[in-house]
């Protein structure tokens, strides 16, 4: 998946399956960067968040994405996990030329949809990509609206409307946040590498009531549940020493939420810039440094299709906060293979969460994204 290579900025690469190989090449091919990167703004400390402005497009930054996941249930008791991402890569900074073709490229937009049918143990996904020309894809600065063709997210009042997918698989969801946005990192900055600017602006809406419809092969299923939203923007690239990452979003029944990302390095160690955020029921946030987080893989699962071996269960231990959780995939195979586009293979899926918080049982749901397991990540140049 492309975004994975796109930037550490996006530690969880939202699964942009079909997306074009060249997009990440853009990031890694020096001449391409020379053509595209100058003129984009680096993510630096001191960003003042303002909503709903920051839900919208940040064209000054090179990469930006909007991500949603959630756990939904139908009245008949069917359970689903879903994940939708809209992704933008700026190729050339500045506005469109005033004259001439309306096809001059500025940004590339990509979108991805994955749905896990937990009862039937099936996993479906779709993707879309396009240049932001002729209104076929884009994002606005005067309102929250991002779209790739007829896939779109629109902010309406307090809520977000999501529409994605085609005839075989689609979702229409209405999502309303129940807590304020959570800003990750320190001083408005989520650091991803050791250098200045190797970072992103990153916030989440960790709890959002969700209602809508999932359509699978023509069958409409009304669903309700809870969603998580991420929005991240910056202008940096993945460092050459990083091989992949593991990302977790967890919503506990006791009202607590947790986000953790761990960047894995080529030498097998975890990058010191890995971090997380613990959010209390009162929306109070605590930044977690790598030293605060203990991650342990309990089990592995090997994909018969790709041959990649992924962690299949995790133990997350935050000893300082007396929080210990076990994450178990709701469907073993939530692997995405993209032989038609980038050839990148990764796992992103719904998990159930069980454990203890301050001596009491804690339960919940979550999403896990794991990249770079099928082969060692190697930048082209």
């Amino acid at each position, binding site marked *: 998946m492309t975004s994975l290579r796109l930037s550490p900025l996006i530690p969880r690469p939202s699964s942009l399956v079909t997306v074009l190989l060249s997009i990440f090449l853009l990031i890694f*091919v020096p001449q391409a960067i020379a053509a595209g990167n100058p003129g984009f703004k680096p993510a630096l400390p001191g960003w003042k968040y303002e909503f709903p402005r920051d839900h919208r497009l940040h064209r000054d930054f090179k990469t930006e994405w909007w991500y949603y996941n959630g756990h939904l249930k139908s009245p008949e008791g069917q359970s689903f996990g879903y994940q939708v991402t809209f992704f933008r890569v700026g190729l050339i900074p500045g506005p469109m030329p005033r004259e001439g073709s*309306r096809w001059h*490229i500025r940004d590339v937009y990509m979108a991805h949809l994955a749905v896990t049918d937990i009862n039937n143990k099936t996993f479906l996904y779709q993707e879309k990509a396009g240049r932001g020309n002729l209104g076929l894809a884009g994002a606005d600065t005067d309102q929250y609206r991002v779209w790739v063709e007829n896939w779109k997210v629109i902010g309406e009042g307090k809520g977000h409307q999501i529409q994605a997918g085609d005839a075989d698989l689609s979702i229409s969801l209405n999502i309303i946040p129940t807590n304020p946005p959570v800003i990750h990192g320190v001083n408005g900055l989520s650091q991803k590498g050791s250098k200045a600017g190797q970072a992103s602006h990153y916030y989440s809406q960790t709890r959002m009531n969700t209602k809508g419809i999932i359509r699978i092969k023509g069958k409409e299923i009304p669903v309700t549940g809870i969603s998580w939203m991420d929005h991240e923007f910056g202008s940096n690239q993945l460092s050459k020493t990083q091989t992949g990452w593991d990302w977790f979003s967890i919503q506990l029944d006791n009202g607590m939420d947790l986000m953790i990302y761990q960047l894995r390095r080529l030498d097998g160690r975890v990058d010191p810039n890995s971090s997380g955020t613990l959010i209390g029921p009162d929306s109070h946030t605590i930044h977690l440094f790598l030293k605060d987080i203990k991650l342990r893989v309990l089990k592995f699962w090997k994909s018969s299709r790709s041959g990649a071996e992924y962690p299949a269960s995790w133990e997350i231990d935050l000893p300082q906060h007396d929080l210990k959780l076990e994450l178990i995939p709701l469907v073993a195979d939530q692997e995405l293979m993209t032989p038609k586009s980038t050839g990148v293979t990764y796992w992103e899926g719904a998990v159930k969460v069980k454990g203890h918080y301050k001596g009491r049982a804690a339960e919940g749901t979550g999403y896990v994204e794991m990249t770079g397991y099928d082969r060692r990540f190697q930048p082209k140049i």
Partner: protein
Amino acid sequence: MITKVYSLFILRHYLQSWRQSLLTVLGLALGISVFVSIHLTVGASLRSFKNTVQAVSGKAEWQLVQNGREIDEKLFPVIKTHPVVQAAAPVVEFQASLYRWPGQMIWIMGVDFFSEAGIRRYSDSLSSLKGEEFLPLLTTPRSIALTRIFAARYGIKEGDVLTILVNGRPKKLTVVSLMEAEGPAQALEGHFGLMDIAQAQDVFGKVGVLDRIDLLLREEGVEKNQIQELKKIIPQGVRLLQPADREKGTERMIRSYQLNLTALSFIAVLVSMYLIYNTASLSVVRRRKELGILRSLGMLPWQVLLLVLFEAAGYGLIGGLIGISGGTLLAGFLLDTVSRTITNLYVLVGVRELPFSFFEAGVMIFLSIIISMVSAYFPARQAARLEPREVIYQRPGWIGPGRIKNRKNLYRGLGLLGLAGLLTGLPAWNNWPVGGFSATLALTLGFSFLLPDFVRGGINRILSLGFQGKKDLLSAWLGVNYVNRYLSRMAVAMAALMIAIAMLISVSLMIRSFRQAVDTWISQSVSGDLFVGPVFPSNQVFSQFLDPQVIGEIEKVKGISDIYYYRGVITELKGFPVRLWSGDLAVIQRHGGLAFTRGKSEEIFQKTLTGEEILVSEVLANQLGLKPGARLSLMTAQGSHSFSVAGVFYDYRTEGGAVWMDRHLFLKYWKDPRINGVRVYLKDPARIHQVREAIYKKMAGRVSLVIISNKELRDQILNIFDQTFQITYVLEAIAILVAFLGILHSSSISVLFREKELGILKALGALPGQIRRMILMETALMGLFSFLWGGIAGTLLSLILIFVINKQSFGWTIPFHWSWLIYLQTLGIIVLGSILSGWIPAGMAVRKSTQEMIREE
């Protein structure tokens, strides 16, 4: 046992008469090679055309196009997001000239790489472009990807600048990547470039428009009602087509060209069939005794039949093998001519390689064997009918047409001629002049049967001139007499030569008449002193435009009295591509008008200038059976519209027919004011040079224009014309060559057969020179009579070619144009050729010692 007899008998014959065998094989090989070369070269062009279509349309099952103009790009988002559409890719394309290599073209396609998935993108990216190479096309201004083949051909490297001519203006493009020959890069044998759609629109002046949209529909969307859904949102004039439909018309035209060349190339095969017939007859006659013995030993008639047929099959096998190699070699020489002709006439094809398949080679060898066996059938049947007794005791004779009663031959010949006459009346079948071709065959066969009578009559006339007693002419007299006596031995070879001559004369007459018609047409109907445009006025003209600024500047040049602005588009008529020309017809009318098949020129022009009436070319009128006053439904940019035919005009410009309309109608139905070029009329035609210089001077350094005079245009058109028919002369030449091999063959046999006779002549004091003269006289006579008879046959054939075959397959009216020169030239070739082919047998006769020749066994 029987196989052993067969192989012994056949091999021994090959070895014993190796000279004749060699000639036979060589003749057949030549015939086959011509056939093979045509098959290969036209096949290669056809394949190039199909590959190009396939390569550039990728997996698209449908295309949206607007006839004769581009589509508004605003349609694209609507199509792209339509629920029936699975994938939609916008395409902007352009045929650009290479600035540094005049006359060379490159076909450039501008695409949106993000829409290519499923259509031309199969794996990582565009299949011919690796991922790393596709991005610079987006981020480098004015950049292009070229194929490796193209780059190597012109010595271009990554990072170099390629200058192309767009509407006469040089445009510099940076070469940012090189493509492998995969996917669309297979088009036009590498003369293909790929650009980002935005840059292509800017560079080609196509901002806001698309040439087409390639589509993949959802599987469930292919059901009819869903296609109807899609059609509902398509604006008027835009059409939803399948790529195959778009190209069918062009393919059909190339196939028809192929058919005509194949028919021509068959002549050489036909001539070589006579040669095999001759050889088989010889083999039977020479071994009558042997055959008789075999028969009396118990060999059955059908076994004798097979024996002779197998012997011929051997020639077929070897001839076929050599023919395929020779044909491949010949195809290499013809390839360029053929592909250039197809480009001139129909569609841009680039051919560099010949398609060679072992399967086809096998088929050709099989055909060659069958042809040989068919040719040997009659001698074989006669051999099978021989009674053992009759054979052993009878004097050796000759098996051939001579043995058939003359009357019978005469009736057969006349019958065939009558049949030919009837066949010419048959209508075309699917535009294929089946009747015409059959008539040609019947006529040639008829003339072959009548040949012996004709020759006999001719010789009697010569003999009555009175050679006798004149010492100097003794050897000539002997020669004439010999031909007369042994006519049956010579008849087949003469018939073969006669056919080759008839074909040469008929095709030459047809070409000459055609050329004359074209020439007359240019001087009558193509007015204008100077032709100005971004490219040479040809089929390529359609995609290139003169910009209004340039036109404005041309208008201001001094010495111009009138300007005709023209615009051509390719549109569609009943599924056929048809060229539509529009312009201010009043200007044409003022300057000589057009040659109409009927009706008053003034009235016809008047109708086109004011009403919804158009002009159609004669070719089109013939194809569709249109007459003035008929209505014609033409696909316009606004959809199909019915026009009335004001007049039918003679037009020899292009294949497929043309429609002309006044500019007011074009503007109404295409709403596109662009101009491809202008014809300039001068106040003083003598000042052509000055006016041309004045225009060049104004444009210097900014716009590269092609400005040609009427005379240059005429020369160019005739040049293309000559180029088109060059290949037919090659085919003819080979047929003639095969025929001479036949003469050489017959003549050397006749020398062998009368060794004793010649020996006695020598013993009686005939000098070597006299013997030589006698034999040369024989071959010259054979040539002469073949020529005379072939000349008559050829003249008749040319009428069939011009008035039946041409009319049915192309639709042109060609006035018959007689030319003595053609006969004279042919005669020259024939006399020279016959003497040359008599030289070797004459030498044989002279060299052998007299004793050896007259010694009794």
